[in-house]
């Protein structure tokens, strides 16, 4: 199946500034790449300087506007520093995307531990709360938007990763309530629920080739999505004026595998 090598630049996000947590790798890098190619200045907020600087440099090599800044979303002070630095350097914040997650907790419910849940909750529900509060005044100033990365697992439930699904569902519930709360402030809040070929998924498929076959088999569009070309444009849409009357929604970007909404 032919997939376009890249989208042409549209200028949909010209003059806009977007900060993406976990924006230097995987799905997050897909979001930042697509948004930058459509005109945004992107801030890749992540923990690893080595990975983040390299990713930002790669985007700049394309002639795009991209910088990396250190940000551990489990530390609200670091989120605050990242947001403040972004606004000081670029004058505004139009879109905050919370994508980062430590979602390594797997296994049945009976094996759930306080430590495992705490790690997952810190980067999902608690980080959503912290990021939202810190970004609020800046998003209100620009009439911007908050986007959370969630998962179809949060809507379907998962026997293999029940706590991951729970955390992702909670983020979706967070977005719905916050959309109602922040609508009067002119801030839109939405979710993206992607399935795409990231290094993590590629690794999982290498370990279990049947996983890739099962994923493709349940996908009407017949392939696993690409972070830049399939998921990224949805963030471009949600962050831009074309979606100015869209809030409280979840866009599932998985080739049609989940159709339950």
């Amino acid at each position, binding site marked *: 199946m032919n997939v376009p090598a890249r989208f042409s630049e549209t200028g949909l996000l010209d003059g806009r500034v977007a900060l993406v947590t976990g924006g230097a790798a995987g799905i997050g890098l897909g979001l930042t790449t697509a948004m930058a190619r459509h005109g945004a200045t992107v801030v890749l907020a992540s923990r690893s300087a080595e990975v983040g600087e390299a990713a930002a440099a790669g985007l700049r090599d394309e002639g795009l506007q991209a910088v990396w800044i250190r940000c551990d979303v489990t530390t609200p002070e670091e989120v605050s520093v990242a947001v403040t630095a972004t606004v000081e350097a670029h004058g505004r914040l139009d879109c905050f995307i919370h994508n980062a997650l430590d979602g390594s907790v797997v296994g*049945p419910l009976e094996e759930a531990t306080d430590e495992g849940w705490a790690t997952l909750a810190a980067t999902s529900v608690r980080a959503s*709360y912290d990021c939202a*509060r810190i970004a609020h005044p800046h998003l209100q100033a620009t009439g911007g938007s908050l986007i959370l990365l969630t998962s179809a697992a949060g809507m379907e439930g998962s026997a293999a990763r029940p706590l991951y699904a729970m955390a992702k569902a*909670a983020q979706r519930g967070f977005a719905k309530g916050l959309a*109602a*709360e922040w609508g009067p402030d002119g801030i839109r809040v939405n979710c993206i629920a992607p399935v795409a070929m990231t290094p993590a998924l590629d690794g999982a498929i290498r370990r279990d080739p049947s996983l890739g076959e099962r994923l493709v088999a349940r996908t009407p569009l017949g392939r696993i999505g690409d972070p830049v070309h399939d998921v990224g444009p949805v963030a471009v849409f949600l962050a831009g004026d074309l979606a100015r009357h869209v809030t409280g929604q979840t866009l599932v970007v998985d080739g049609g595998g989940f159709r339950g909404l």
Partner: protein
Amino acid sequence: MVEPGRDPATSSGGSPGLDAIGPGFRTAVGLLGVPDLVVHVPTVTDGPVAITDQSPDGWAAACEAPMVEAIGVARAVGDLIGSQPANGVARRLVWILPTTALGGSAGFVGVGAAGEGIRALAKGAARQWGPSCTTTVLAVSPALLFDGEGPSDEGSLSPPALGGPGDPATDLADLVDLLADPRSRFTTGGTLVADGGTWMAP
């Protein structure tokens, strides 16, 4: 019926941890025998509180503590399933949540987030446990769960089709009886909306 969600220790903002439910649950099982039905009513915190005004402790009480409670309940039930096979007797775990979990509500962001999380937990438990224990979420009018000011039924422009939020002692109890009946054994993981016909999901 087990209703551990009203422990004041969980509403102060601090989470008691996943093990808080287990000992009490096991004691109840020891005294009363293995239950065919467990009903959990997660803590809800009154409001409204804007997220920008909500303290970290307030957020923990509204969102994180109810999810920890729910995981603790699920884990306790899961342990029971593992230790005492049902031997053909239907078992069900029911969570009762406000419909705020479905549509979200301004001022109650944490409540809605926890509710959606618990709905996903119910689905995951259903997929994991299969016929050993079925699960259901009952989504009810917020008016039945909040002691103080709760979310309005703003999810619909229309009043409840059946005229009101319902009576827990009759309307909801009958539904729970229905879910406890073995004839309900083929439904699991779903959300049953019992709010008198306000929220009608697409």
